[in-house]
């Protein structure tokens, strides 16, 4: 039993890496623009279908889809930004409905192009078992956990060291003060959307490489990403990383100990619990109370 639990913890951590990437994108955009991009999961899904297309049509490894996904997803992310910036009033609520609409468009576009069938990789190399100490995983799971870790380290460096990264942080914490320091909030908003797009691209390819995808999946990913940011407490980047791992672990444990049907439920339950008991999240400092 304890071996099963340890194995579930391991799988959960590997899965949590991709979750964290997705949630980080959502959190970055919310930080600079105060907009929850409800189409974020669909952006991830788009990258996943790029990987599917490269594998099924070109016969190449899904890894080659990464450049293609980067271009397409970042373009879409910037488009979302422009549409959101066109909203004239009540942006907080209208942006929710707008990005919800964009999500519908993307989901149905995917449905039109690739049909509703469930897709997964056929690459044996990806699916090979890899043993690390007492733990098993698919090669792709481990590979993309490493990729996610590198990306998160890069993001961490970028936010704390580079000028743009610091600008993103400055705008997130105090827009007016950032303006006075000569930072153009619009530029940082676009940059945050692009970075979110980059993270989504990798996450999408990762999800295809070790899991199954279908058009309705994007919506579920958005919900997961939002759950993670709530677990973390909005505004806490390290919190989001930990939150991603937490959700991955919670889901894996549920599948091992209860049933896979309840996998989705555990995230929701965790989410509502945190929302009710600790409205500032596990790591958040800022109050959200009205």
């Amino acid at each position, binding site marked *: 039993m304890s071996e099963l639990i340890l194995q579930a913890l391991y799988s959960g951590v590997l899965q949590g890496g991709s979750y964290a990437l997705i949630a980080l994108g959502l959190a970055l955009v919310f930080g600079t623009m105060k907009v929850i991009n409800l189409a974020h999961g669909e952006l991830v899904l788009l990258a996943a279908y790029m990987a599917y297309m490269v594998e099924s049509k070109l016969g190449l490894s899904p890894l080659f889809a990464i450049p293609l996904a980067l271009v397409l997803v970042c373009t879409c992310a910037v488009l979302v930004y422009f549409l959101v910036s066109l909203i004239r009033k009540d942006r*907080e609520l209208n942006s929710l409905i707008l990005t919800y609409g964009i999500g519908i468009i993307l989901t149905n576009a995917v449905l*039109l192009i690739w049909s509703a069938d469930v897709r997964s990789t056929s690459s044996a190399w990806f699916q090979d078992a890899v043993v690390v100490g007492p733990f098993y995983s698919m090669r792709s799971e481990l590979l993309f956990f490493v990729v996610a870790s590198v990306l998160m380290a890069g993001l961490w460096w970028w936010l704390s060291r580079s000028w743009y990264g610091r600008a993103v942080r400055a705008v997130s914490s105090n827009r007016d003060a950032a303006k006075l320091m000569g930072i153009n909030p619009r530029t940082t908003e676009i940059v945050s959307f692009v970075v979110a797009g980059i993270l989504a691209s990798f996450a999408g390819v990762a999800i295809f490489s070790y899991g199954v995808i279908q058009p309705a999946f994007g919506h579920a990913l958005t919900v997961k990403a939002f759950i993670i940011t709530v677990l973390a407490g909005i505004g806490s980047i390290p919190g989001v990383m930990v939150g991603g791992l937490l959700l991955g672990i919670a889901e894996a444990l549920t599948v091992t100990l209860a049933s896979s049907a309840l996998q989705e439920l555990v995230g929701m339950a965790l989410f509502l619990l945190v929302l009710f008991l600790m409205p500032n999240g596990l790591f958040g400092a800022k109050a959200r109370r009205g």
Partner: protein
Amino acid sequence: MYVSKTGLAVIAAAYVAVPLLLGSNNYVMSLIVAAMIIGGIALAWALLGNLGGMVSFGHSAFFGVGAYVSALLTMKAGMPIFAAMLLGGVGAVVASLVMLPVLRLKGPYFALAILAYAHIFKIIATEWSSVTGGSAGLASVPRFPELMGFDLSGKTGSYLIILTVLLAFVAAYRAIRASHYGIALRAMHDSEDATRVVGVNSTLLKALMLFVSAFMTGVVGAFNVHYINFLEPDYAFSGLWVTLPIVAAIFGGYRTILGPLVGAVTVYLVDQLIFKSLIPSGHQLVLGALLVAMIIFSPGGLMPLLRKDSRRKHAAA
């Protein structure tokens, strides 16, 4: 309550002319009933948005709970359908109680918490199979009865029922909006703090609007289940019960009472008759595009836009 002459004429036409002219065409009647079901949810959704200032992506939870409560009460407890429908609404209100702590949170939190919440209900309905029949669902849910020799379970009978339900909703919405509570809710929309310091309990008022909205949606869900006679979790809690009403309400104008209804009929019929035949799978893409376009170009919806236009024409004349 004041009802204009045009209003009375429309109501009379809806009760008499529509059944007489279209009643024999089952296909058209089923389209109209489906559009009115969407309209009912759209109205409830818009009430929450307009008076409560809240965007919900989880109304499918109320729709599904209302449907299950009413179906189970009639099937397992033998309750009369119309009483069960009301209790379906009550069930949705009870379901909404869990949302109360989220009401104090601002902005996107409510919208997303309620979305998460809808997912939970779907899973519960699937897993709790001893009561709900699980993913196989419930078959042969009781139909509407005969009333004075008139079979209400047919298309025309069902149409008259949902029409009456919608009219009751409109009347209730109007009464709430005109009440002191309604004025206070409108006041909160722009300056919540200033409204609270004169003694308005904003959380309570929002909670009441959530209850009203949940009740209406639950009743519509209950109507639907007795209309189609079967129920399964994927259907009862489908995202469609959220998407279509939102598009309808935004299209028609969620700040008006009739907008969501007009929007529902327009959007649903156009979607079913035109887009669905053009793009059989994925036709909702057009709905998404419509939603995006409306938010950018006319977030107030089409009804206010038309009204402004006619006012301008009046002024010019």
